[in-house]
């Protein structure tokens, strides 16, 4: 969803856009290359002759063995950046995640802090943290790398959050955790896309560093979830689970799932329970100054767009 939005935005601005992914994009304005991060040859072909690379590919999941995450998220990033540097690419924007610096404590108005793989929660966050560190490490004045960490991206067509929330709400399996009062920052997809593009345009100022990107409109998690449910035509959740209980249940489910080798996503993980019961919102002042960027779509407008999407 986010890659699509970025590609569309760049193409609309007159850039010539090439994509690399496993399935065709279906976009007429871009040139598709098929391939994956573990395929060096495909990567070399894809970066040949381009000025800049925006790297959004990752294995995103709450579950799974460490090796899978490392192969795609860490080694894949190393592969891509090495090929890009060899091909003479000038600029790289690595799309990261605020979870690289999230150690399970509430985040209340914090700025961007350094990625900490050792303290990251879960394999996804750990692998993204490692990848961000290695990407920024490679940044030089001739090969400029910057990282953007959009926080909880959502919008029409989002399968990670929106679809899951709506599906679970429809099935009556979505609880409110700890009263839903934890204040969280999110990013409407168009804003995440425009921030990534802004990062590329302003890489002079951002080179070698990471910036957290959000809508800058923190909201109680319960209100956001309800808003998404309503936009998707589902009844918002009513039953409340205390935060501690959810975290305990999450870690239990997590263990059982891993032992059982279940393929799909578990209904609740400790990481998710923490995400839903502790505050995480950020100080956006530095990000906005560095990127010279403002989000164009408010949360309220985003929810309206989401509702329009589902009404269609």
């Amino acid at each position, binding site marked *: 969803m986010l890659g699509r939005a970025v590609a569309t935005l760049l193409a609309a601005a007159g850039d010539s856009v090439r994509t690399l992914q496993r399935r065709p994009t279906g976009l007429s304005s871009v040139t598709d290359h098929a391939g994956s991060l573990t395929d060096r040859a495909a990567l070399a072909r894809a970066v040949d002759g381009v000025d800049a690379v925006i790297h959004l590919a990752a294995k995103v999941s709450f579950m799974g063995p460490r090796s899978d995450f490392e192969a795609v998220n860490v080694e894949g990033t190393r592969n891509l950046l090495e090929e890009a540097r060899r091909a003479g690419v000038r600029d790289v924007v690595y799309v990261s995640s605020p979870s690289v610096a999230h150690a399970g404590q509430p985040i*209340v108005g914090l700025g961007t802090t350094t990625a900490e793989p050792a303290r990251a929660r879960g394999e996804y966050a750990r692998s993204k943290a490692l990848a961000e560190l290695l990407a920024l490490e490679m940044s030089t004045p001739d090969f400029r790398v910057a990282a953007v960490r959009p926080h909880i991206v959502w919008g029409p067509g989002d399968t990670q959050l929106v679809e899951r929330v709506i599906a679970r709400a429809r099935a009556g399996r979505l609880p409110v955790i700890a009263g839903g009062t934890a204040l969280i920052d999110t990013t409407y997809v168009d804003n995440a896309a425009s921030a990534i593009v802004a990062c590329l345009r302003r890489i002079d100022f951002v080179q070698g560093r990471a910036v957290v990107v959000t809508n800058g409109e923190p909201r109680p998690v319960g209100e956001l979830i309800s808003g998404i449910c309503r936009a998707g035509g589902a009844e918002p959740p009513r039953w409340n689970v205390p935060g501690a209980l959810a975290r305990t249940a999450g870690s239990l489910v997590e263990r059982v799932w891993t032992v059982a080798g279940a393929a799909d996503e578990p209904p609740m993980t400790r990481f998710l329970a923490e995400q839903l019961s502790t505050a995480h919102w950020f100080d956006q002042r530095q990000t906005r100054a560095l990127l010279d960027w403002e989000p164009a779509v408010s949360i309220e407008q985003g929810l309206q767009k989401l509702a329009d999407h589902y009404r269609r």
Partner: protein
Amino acid sequence: MVALPGVDPAWSSYVDVPSASAADNPGTVNSWHYLDNGPQLSAAGTAVRGTLLCVHGNPTWSYLWRTLLAQGVLEGWRVIAVDQLDMGFSRRTRTFRRLADRVTDLEDFAAALHLDGPLVTVGHDWGGVVSLGYAHRNRANLAGVILTNTAIHQEPTKPIPSLLRLALLPGVHRIGTQTTSAFLDVTHALARPKLRSEVRAAFRAPYRTRADRAGIANFVSDIPATPSHPSYAALTDIAEGIRTLDVPSLMVWGPRDPIFTDTYLEDLTRRLPSADVHRFEDAGHLLQEDADVAGTIFRWLGERFPTGSRKASTAASAPPAAPPPTFLWHQLRERSAGPEQDSLAVAEMGRDSIRRSMSWRELADDVDAVAAGLTRFGVGSGSRVSLMVPPGVDLTVLIYACLRIGAVIVVADAGLGTKGLSRAVKGSVPDVVVGIERALLAARLFGWPGRRISVGTLSAGKRALHVESSLETLRTTPPGPVGDQNPDPDADAAILFTSGSTGPAKGVVYTHRQLSGMRDTVGGTFGLGPGGALVAGFAPFALLGPALGAASVTPDMEVTASKTLTARALADAAEAIDATAVFAAPAALRNIVATRDGLTASGKLALGRVTTVLSAGAPVPALLLQQVQELLPVASLSTPYGMTEALPVSTIDLEGILAAEADAEAEATADAAGATPGVVRGAGNGVCVGRAVQGARLAVSALSDDGVPHGTPTTEPGITGEILVDAPHVKSRYHRLWRTEEMSSRTAPWHRTGDVGHFDEAGRLWVEGRLGHIITTPGAVRTPVGIEQALEKLDAVRLAAVVGVGPAGTQAVVAVVEPLPAPGRNRRRTRKPVLADAGLAERARSAARMAGVDLAAILTVPALPVDIRHNAKIDRAEVAKWAGGVLAGGSSRTP
């Protein structure tokens, strides 16, 4: 010394000092440990402004002063904190060192270090006494003295504090202080909040073994509890000697100390009358751990020992060159001797008629009689008299009698609650408490200082309440001479306590000149003067009746709860004296409207003759005033704005409020539509409090992006800043709050009110909230009141508080609302805060957006915390703390 939290290891030093003390054999050399930031200062090449010599008490050590050493490095002051012998890491001498030895010891130490001036001694606990002993005998280089919770004199007739009595009991002493660490433990437990375990361990570090603790036991034994004690003479010598110290002095105190209570502070201030005093109301014995003692000390040093060309501000501000004012009792004198001497001056209402009254002559005579009685009782110029008497004839008499003889009246409101009241009384250390039985019971229960005089009949008996006299006795014994001499107009006349809705109640000191200024302002602004008649339903202004030359009557009401004033009681009072003016609290107005059906025909007529209504203390909604206007059709309804420090500051009447609200409305719509002629720019976003009262000037000091008021005073419309006031009736100072006073008066001649607001184009002031309640969002400073008003216009909302959560500069704005009970629905009342339902959240967001603010969250609670006195001022700091916790999510710390 091992590494300890807050201590730079480089500070730790040892020195061998030859002893001149009688406790040691000749030729003894003692090893002293001390902390010293001097080497650090010289390494950094910092010019040294002076030296602080800090002396700890028992059972602490130089560790107590670590914050002074750290800040001293930044401020250019060398700070030396010594470990007394047998204490800390200094030598265990195996001798018993008495006070005189310890003073000699300190002299030996200072000599060994070649300390030259300027030197400021700093002491705590018994270290305070030792440091004063040094200061008293070594004046050549002495530049100042600083004391924290200590005592220099024990009144022989009074028992020593019970904790010490316990520690001195023969069976307890050795076991409590040396065999076990009980004395250490008890002392450390006095810190509030609790000491962190590392800090606690640091305080214990030098006292691990029984032998280490010998000094602690001996220190306790050396407390001269009675005149027969061997150290009593040495103590008395110092106590008397310091009376002639002529250097600046500062006393920083933690009153929640079971040993060194306010009584000892009072004693010290009488020995060093020019001392600056700051009491940290919430701090206790270990105040260095509880409060910003270092910050206060260095701010004071900066003031008293300025660098460069800045001149030291003189201890007392130069007396104004103004002519002496007419004293508060001027009109009382005039009228008691004039043709109206037999007409009514003061009265109290009973159920429906006058219960008690005095003519002008009777009042003047009674004031003289009571003044004479008080003089005979020992009350004189500068004595502090706490008046715990409900408004009425007796209170009026007592106030004027005290002022007349130069005594300082202390007035605290029962609305503070028992605890708050008790703290206020103790902090003001009255010489005399004059009270009704309930107050005297509290005085005994809470151990208030001061001799006691009763008012009214007592059921408990004089003896039990330690009452020495009664108001009746004072006024009936044969009149003695009352000097005809008026007090110094610039001497203290009154200490009035703030409501405590913003932290602990503060004592506010007024001089006679300032009280006269208040009278003139109230009289001039509201047209009150000789010949008028007023119903005094609101205490602060009530005392001004005789001063204005107006007859005054106290209506029949529960005096501690202004909301109990009924329409009937008000009308009865108005009818009884044919009132022209009414003073009533906002809560009283609400009740008057609610009980209007109880009015009689003649009562209605009496209210119909009232021409002035004043209601102060909290904003009064226009709607309520309109309802009041129906009952008092010809009265002008004014709602003065002010604070205990300056009463009143500005005023606005009902017509003014309605006009201001219309202007605010027009300004809001004009903003959307672009410039519109006739629109008053700056109207809105706050409560309009009108224009300055007679004699007062107003200004604001603009806020920086992080919410600090630093702008030069301005009246330019549309600039939000801290509200400043300058008037003849602004307070003299805060009582024993040196730092608070310094902050409030740092922009001479202005008093900084701590309120935030702005002017509109028409010169009216709009109050936007408290300085402590402003919200610093990214890119803009927001104030709460305007947004709250927008939210309170919503049907579902009864009361709203708007607060910021998160770090300053990037705060999220949160609304916490108290909803109106939903009609018909019998929902379970939950005490827990919840997210507002989607409908309310949406309406609240769009209302706030109109005011230019994005609300991050809207929470609902059954009841917001409001102040006791007015039942209206929301404790937003409390709400913010609480909302911050709720919105951070449950504790995510996982086991």
